[in-house]
């Protein structure tokens, strides 16, 4: 690894220090729920309940949990095909999420969208974009909307390291900066696109360097440290609400599994994988909480057990849900009539 280039911001105000014990444990709960959800998706896929393909975010839970904590209910969030974590961190109903992955009528998109396209507008989850980079201009539009409406909302978009090479990223970054929009660009740098290492496709490993090209405020954080993520996100969100414009936050992280269901991820060095597994965000945070005397191992197990049972129950209910009707009015699904 090259030495990280510093971002332009200073996360040193330590917003996380102000979090209540409840909030801290809540973060653990969120990450654990996401992990258990993804593990269940994996199992359900093998059982034939999830169709086509699916992109899991195991190992990256601290990013969506940490950022979500900094947001209000009326903020806007957009993300990618690897978007289950973002949705759960915003409170998407577990059963509706599973039902969508299973292609059922009770899915959050009626079984029409699928694993890559979870959307729930009522939660500000404005969309999951399957085309790399495509969500960023949309997030800029939501940011413009927030600016125009004047209600101090922000628009956050999540994307991967591979997305910083596509044109849509560039156009969105520039527009957000020129118009000083309340947009937070969260780059989950998990070091790989599909199978290519970032240095194969980008001139450097620290993507905050990109932000410099737009004179955009930026932060480089340990994306496996949920409090560090929160520490970067909270002031960025505050600045955005105050009309001080966008921030680019790079979160260094790692996906535990392959790119998608069919990828055994053999292109990754086993030493690298080992090293990152040791940096598992949930284990690290659990150790933190234990050290701070906020949660015992037993407490942590309770959280996990609760998450597991919630997830299991939701998946079971989703698996029993009906298939969407083949004779439904697809035209009304497509167009407001």
């Amino acid at each position, binding site marked *: 690894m090259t030495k990280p280039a510093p971002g332009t911001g200073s996360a040193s105000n330590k917003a996380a220090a102000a979090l209540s014990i409840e909030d801290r444990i809540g973060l653990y709960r969120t990450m654990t729920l996401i992990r258990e959800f993804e593990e269940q998706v994996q199992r359900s896929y093998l059982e034939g309940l999830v169709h086509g393909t699916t992109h899991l975010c195991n190992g990256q839970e601290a990013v969506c949990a940490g950022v979500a904590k900094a947001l209000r209910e009326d903020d806007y969030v957009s993300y990618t095909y690897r978007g289950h974590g973002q949705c759960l961190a915003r409170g998407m109903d577990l059963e509706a999420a599973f039902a969508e992955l299973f292609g059922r009528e009770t899915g959050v*998109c009626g079984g029409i969208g699928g694993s890559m396209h979870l959307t729930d507008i009522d939660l500000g989850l404005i969309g999951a974009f399957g085309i790399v980079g495509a969500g960023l*201009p949309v997030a*800029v*539009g939501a940011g413009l909307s927030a600016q125009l409406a004047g209600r101090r909302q922000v628009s956050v978009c999540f994307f991967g390291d591979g997305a910083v090479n596509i044109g849509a990223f560039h156009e969105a970054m*520039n*527009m957000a900066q020129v118009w000083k929009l309340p947009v937070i660009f969260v780059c989950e740098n998990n070091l790989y696109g599909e199978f290519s290492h970032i240095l194969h496709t980008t001139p450097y490993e620290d993507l905050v360097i990109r932000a410099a090209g737009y004179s955009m405020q930026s932060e480089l954080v340990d994306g496996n440290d949920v409090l560090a993520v929160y520490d970067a996100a909270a002031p960025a969100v505050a600045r955005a609400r105050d009309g001080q414009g966008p921030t680019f936050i790079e979160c260094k992280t790692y996906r535990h599994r392959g790119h998608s269901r069919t990828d055994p991820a053999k292109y990754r060095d086993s030493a690298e994988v080992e090293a990152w597994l040791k940096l598992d965000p949930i284990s690290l945070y659990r150790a933190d909480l234990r050290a701070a005397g906020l949660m015992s191992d037993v407490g942590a197990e309770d959280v996990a057990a609760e998450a597991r049972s919630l997830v299991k129950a939701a998946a079971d209910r989703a698996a029993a849900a009906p298939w969407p009707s083949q004779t439904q009015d697809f035209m009304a699904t497509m167009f*407001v009539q």
Partner: protein
Amino acid sequence: MRTNEKIISAGVEPIERVTQEITYREAIVAALREEMRRDPKTLIMGEDVGESGGPFKTCHGLYEEFGAERVRDTPIAETGFVGAALGLALTGYRPIVEIMFADFLGVCFDQIANSIAKHRFMSGGRVKTPIVIRALGGAGLRFGAQHSQTAESWLLSVPGIKIICPSDPEQAYLMLKAAIRDDNPVLVLEHKALLSMKGPAPIGIDDVTMPSGPRVLRPGRHATIVASLAMVRKALAAAESLNAEGIEAEVIDIQVLRPLNVAPISDSVRRTNILVTVEEQAPTGGWSSDVVADVVSQAFDYLDAPPARITLPDHPLPYSPHLEDALIPSPERIAATVKSLL
């Protein structure tokens, strides 16, 4: 050639007193202005649409009236601002974007085809995406191969977006107003060779609805000519000259490409038994093939001859004026084609 009937056919009560002679360009401006007055959630974005009033002056005066926030100059970033339109629409606004030349739709094709056209559908119909994309296209101005396309057929195969193409000031005005009120994405293809065309338009009218299909511009019993955009005038001219020879051609403006409603054309063909289409596009992939194929299935037994499609040649348009002129369908070619089928 204009009657109240036509105004009615576009779903509008005829209010003769407001009908004015205006240009196609003025019609666009009027539609934008009125709808922006009507709904504060509307806004327009595009390159140089602000203080400059638009490269083709189709936003003239809007900046002065609505200010920089609602009449917004963008960077040269079609993917960026077309994508932003989706974000605005999802969060309560009704964005209108201007694509300076329709040829540039290629730069933001993905945002239109994969994001805008599919977003509501993929959400299970749970979001609303009221977006208008206006793009100025068309040949005849010696702008060369990259600035002369109507792009009529580029998005013809993409479900999830409506496509309309006004051929005169009246429809430029009425259809754009209706498009802005529509809760779905609408691509409005305008033609730059028509910008100075004059005609009556019911300015100030409030009761507009999206037309459900083609519109008969000139009745006739001997042949049906269907055309779009700048080809409509050529078709009307052809009909006029045919008339002198005693041939009465019915001229239909296709005007709504998506969703395509061929029934009125089939009705016409059932009476005339002859169909000629005219489009300013290559011979393949365009609406005229769809029209022919549908008419054939709807009115098979009524056709006296195989329908003829008049199109651009199957290569890009050259710059040189005489070459360009020779390749764009002319009234003479249309009239000759009609006669060849009788």
